[in-house]
């Protein structure tokens, strides 16, 4: 309403808002351009020349475009509302105390939280009974730890302690951490990033754990493939997961794993490495 009159009584339709909206908004004080300092200098000729750039009153706009003042008032107010972004004030929440806004470093808050449809489906599929989750959290078993942090902590606190024993080989936490970092760096060089799927077809060897931890380091996703699976199964699984890379043995007995996986690249478009 304006002056107690509804939009119908004022003579406003959605078509009018569409037709005149941009013009009214552009002529209003919502965008102001001032050249020089005419107000302080009392240069009234210049003030008058720049009047439209500085924004016209609703009556002045109405006179220019042939609407009534209340029609302009209504259209302007509606446009101001429709163009208003409600969440921009959150940009203030991280500023101050020496931190200034920088256009080149600014990522809209919403873009930090864009997930793929697949990721959202996966998240929705992972449910825990609330009562159980509450118990685990209260006992401190779910403390917000991650695999990567867990490993880093052990590397720092007990670097010489054994982490993996595989046959006669023992890897300390320090050695494990170094191998994981190296492999993660290699993945990174190949362009593997947060959210990417890396398929792994390895037996129960130390490299399986190293690979898993390196994938976790990057925030990528590990897809496991049974050692018994061959081309047909692997093609289906790699395609379904949109795997970007696959880690496997070069050969295992009569199974030329690496050659097979390389051959699947042409059939799995996302498979790059």
């Amino acid at each position, binding site marked *: 309403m304006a002056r107690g009159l509804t939009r119908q009584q004022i003579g406003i339709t959605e078509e009018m808002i569409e037709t005149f909206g941009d013009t009214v908004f552009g002529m209003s004080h919502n965008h102001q351009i001032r050249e020089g300092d005419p107000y302080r200098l009392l240069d009234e000729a210049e003030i008058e020349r720049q009047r439209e750039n500085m924004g016209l009153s609703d009556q002045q706009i109405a006179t220019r475009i042939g609407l009534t003042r209340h029609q302009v008032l209504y259209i302007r107010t509606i446009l101001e509302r429709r163009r208003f972004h409600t969440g*921009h004030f959150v940009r203030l929440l991280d500023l101050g105390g020496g931190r*200034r*806004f920088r256009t080149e470093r600014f990522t809209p808050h919403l873009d930090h939280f864009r997930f793929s449809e697949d990721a959202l489906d996966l998240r929705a599929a992972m449910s825990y009974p609330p009562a159980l989750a509450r118990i685990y959290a209260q006992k401190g078993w779910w403390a917000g730890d991650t695999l990567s942090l867990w490993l880093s902590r052990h590397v720092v606190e007990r670097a010489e302690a054994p982490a993996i024993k595989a046959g006669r080989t023992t890897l300390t936490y320090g050695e494990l951490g170094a191998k994981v970092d190296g492999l993660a760096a290699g993945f990174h060089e190949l362009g593997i990033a947060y959210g990417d799927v890396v398929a792994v077809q390895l037996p129960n060897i130390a490299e399986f754990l190293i690979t898993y931890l390196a994938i976790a380091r990057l925030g990528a996703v590990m897809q496991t493939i049974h050692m018994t699976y061959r081309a047909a199964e692997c093609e289906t699984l790699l395609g379904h997961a949109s795997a970007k890379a696959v880690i496997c043995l070069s050969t295992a007995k009569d199974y030329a794993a690496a050659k097979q996986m390389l051959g699947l690249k042409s059939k799995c478009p996302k498979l790059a490495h």
Partner: protein
Amino acid sequence: MARKKRDIDPAEAKTAILEYCKRKGALVAGIADLAAIERICPPGYRPGDLMPRVKSVISLGVGGQTQGAWSVPAKALGYFGSTESRAYTIAYGLAFYIENKFTTPTIYCPPDMDPDAGPRVPLQSLKVHAELAGIGARSLAGDILLHPEFGYMYFASVFTELELEPDKPLETNPCPAPSCVSMYRQIGQTPCMKFCPVQCLTGEVADDGTQKIMRYDMAACAEMTQQFETVPAAIMEAIKATDEPAREDALFDPDNKMLWYKMSVGSGGLLAQCFECMRVCPIATKAPLADPILRAEAKAAE
């Protein structure tokens, strides 16, 4: 019974009025040229539209926040950065003072929105009054008025039927400051332009270091400073919501629930104000008498 008007010396009246303002806490006050205001401001927004027999427009300015406030996080600065209520209190008292002392009709000029023009349109432009009274000049920061000694201030106006000699606008404009000109020459932006969170300011500095063009996207600025419009937007989201959790979020999630609290407290300053352009302005923060510390130091040095 006709009121008996005593003879009033305009010069003495002006002195008394300006001293009253300073005594009550204004940093500076002046008289704006009514005729100039009437020519500049559009019909409906001239002093005569509010007070038909007005003869003089008095403008006064009060200081902004304390020096310490500039180091506060941006999210909290709005809570105590605005001191405009002090200006309004002084102006309100001034109107009564003038009527008591000079028995002349006077009004405190409301800083509020024109009920007949929707939000974002004030009844009068306090900015024009202050500028013509010589107590501020338009800056590249969206025409915020700055004073070479006091930095940025909040302004209030009083209209009176007393005839007072008007003052002149400031002879020079302190904006842009030399450091801002230097920055502009290097990167094409002044600090206020560079650090605005919604990039509402652009402009140009002339070769002689004065303002060439000021561009202000007031609509974008309002998205930071005027959360008022978020309130009906939240209600609309709740109405449009298709399920209970969405409705609940629209009304009661952390961001929106804050709005109801702010409205309940009733302070406009809680729903508005982003200070980032002023935080990085050398005039606002470092003018010789810009804050209580600088003013106290200046007084001690006298």
